[in-house]
């Protein structure tokens, strides 16, 4: 069969209007954005949407954002984003009621672990938390148990609302470990240090990680050493988000490149040439 539009299991990528329902700061330079949009219908955990921020015609690209939760019945999507540049700064100025468009659902999301009985480990760094939360919901729904590590530079940057909800998703014998680089909250140090400790205590079936690339590289290395499966959600500058431009290449161990927006953003960590 010849390829048609890029399609996930539930839907084909399309252009969807959205209306901002809420957009408020939840940690230093981090915002929670809730939109109402038909794009909610097709979204799988780990996929992303590509959001237009209207107003400044000198910035032409959209902003790719993962989501934490969808509520298809109410056409709602919840996203969290950090202000890192002009686009996200202008996004933070959009008020409830503002309208724009999103391209989505984009890419391929998280996969359930091969062995659903084994405990999984989730590792989020910084604003990598939203898709990790989506993974947590997916796992919880499938009855997979998991621990989670949530890292940030400092307490002020921890997205507590999402961490609290994450804590509600973990099983009784599992836990959420918070780590900050400066020790202002949780344990002091990197998520990798926490992970070293946890992998010595438990036999994990699969690691799910999203955060700064340098962190994910470390997480993937620990997983590889322990022969634990690892899925990582990668970021790239994206021109389109639907496979048209070739801008979002991810180097593969096997040589050549994959497309972050089509083959990812979630990759099997051991296929990636970090």
């Amino acid at each position: 069969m010849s390829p048609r539009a890029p399609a996930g299991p539930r839907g084909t990528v399309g252009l969807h209007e959205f209306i901002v329902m809420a957009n408020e700061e939840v940690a230093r330079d981090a915002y929670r954005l809730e939109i109402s949009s038909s794009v909610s219908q097709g979204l799988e955990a780990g996929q992303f949407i590509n959001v237009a921020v209207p107003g400044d015609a000198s910035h032409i690209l959209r902003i790719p954002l993962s989501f934490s939760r969808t509520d298809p019945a109410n056409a709602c999507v919840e996203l969290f984003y950090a202000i890192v540049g002009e686009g996200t700064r202008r996004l933070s100025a959009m008020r409830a009621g503002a309208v724009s468009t999103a391209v989505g659902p984009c890419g391929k999301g998280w996969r359930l672990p091969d062995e659903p009985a084994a405990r999984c480990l989730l590792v989020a760094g910084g604003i990598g938390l939203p898709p990790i939360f989506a993974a947590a919901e997916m796992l919880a729904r499938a009855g997979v148990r998991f621990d989670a590590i949530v890292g940030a530079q400092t307490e002020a940057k921890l997205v507590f609302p999402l961490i609290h909800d994450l804590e509600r998703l973990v099983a009784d014998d599992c836990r959420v470990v918070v780590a900050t680089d400066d020790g202002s909250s949780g344990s002091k140090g990197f998520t990798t240090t926490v992970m070293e400790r946890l992998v010595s205590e438990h036999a994990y079936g699969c690691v799910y990680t999203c955060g700064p690339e340098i962190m994910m590289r470390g997480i993937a290395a620990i997983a590889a050493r322990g022969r634990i499966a690892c899925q990582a959600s990668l970021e790239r500058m994206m021109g389109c988000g639907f496979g048209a431009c070739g801008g979002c290449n991810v180097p593969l161990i096997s040589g050549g490149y994959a497309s972050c927006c089509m083959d990812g953003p979630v990759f099997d960590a051991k296929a990636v040439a970090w």
Partner: protein
Amino acid sequence: MVSGVGMAVDLGGVKMRNPINTASGTFGFGWQLEGFYDVSTLGAITAKGTSAEPWPGNPAPRLCEVSSGIMNTIGLANPGVAGVIEKSGAYLAELERRGCRVIMQAVGHTIEEYRSAVRLIEELAPFVSGIELNISCPNIARGGKLVGGTPEDAAEVVRAVRPLVSRPLLVKMAPVRVPEIARACEGAGADALSLINTINAMSIDVRTRRSRLSKPTGGLSGPAIHPIAVRMVWEAAQAVSIPINGIGGISSGADAAEMILAGATAVTVGTQNLPDPTAAPRILGELEAWASEQGVSGINELVGAFEC
């Protein structure tokens, strides 16, 4: 169509139902956009530049944003003619049947590579309506200078592939020395000229002192280059008598109309497809509305109708 304006155009033998084409490298192989609209409503699509053998392209980052534009250094990543046809050939053949012209683009680093690519396209993609020669590739034999950076070099590569091409041959020009190179390509047998390709540019992260791309320079595209592209299309249209495919920063019907007035027979939407995947059909609608306001019976009457 509702307006009653005839929109069909003939781009050097590529018979398009309307003047809207999509730019190589910004539209995948067409099927990526089918989720947004019926791609066959466009006049043509131009496929991503394709080499005889697969090219991996450049490392990341391949894209960055600048004022009213983007820069890229994709490096013509592509799976080679056979790889393209394997994955997208059936779709492209079907798109032709649906009435949308398919233009395959050939790239190479040497004249021999161009000839191989063109031969393979002729062999494996006999359904395509046209072949576009992208002469903005780095010429390995000349230390990475543009294959088509001088009139002589441009003529040489066009002459070398012309006998191998049994269908309309478009030549996609780099935005340099336009009238001279346009004349050279016409003289060497091009049926139409496509311009402009991206403009070589540079963006430095001043904190790290490094390029914001994986190479020192990249190609600038988008609204920033539109007024330059219109001027170059105008110069080319004055210099040659073969039709022009106008490309560069088209993001509205008015932008497309400027290209047509400057002398373009077809207009090609590039970068705008990326953030705005329904741009091409929207621009088609706006263009038709403009033609109707101008009171012409066919869009052809407006080609080159700029009044100095």
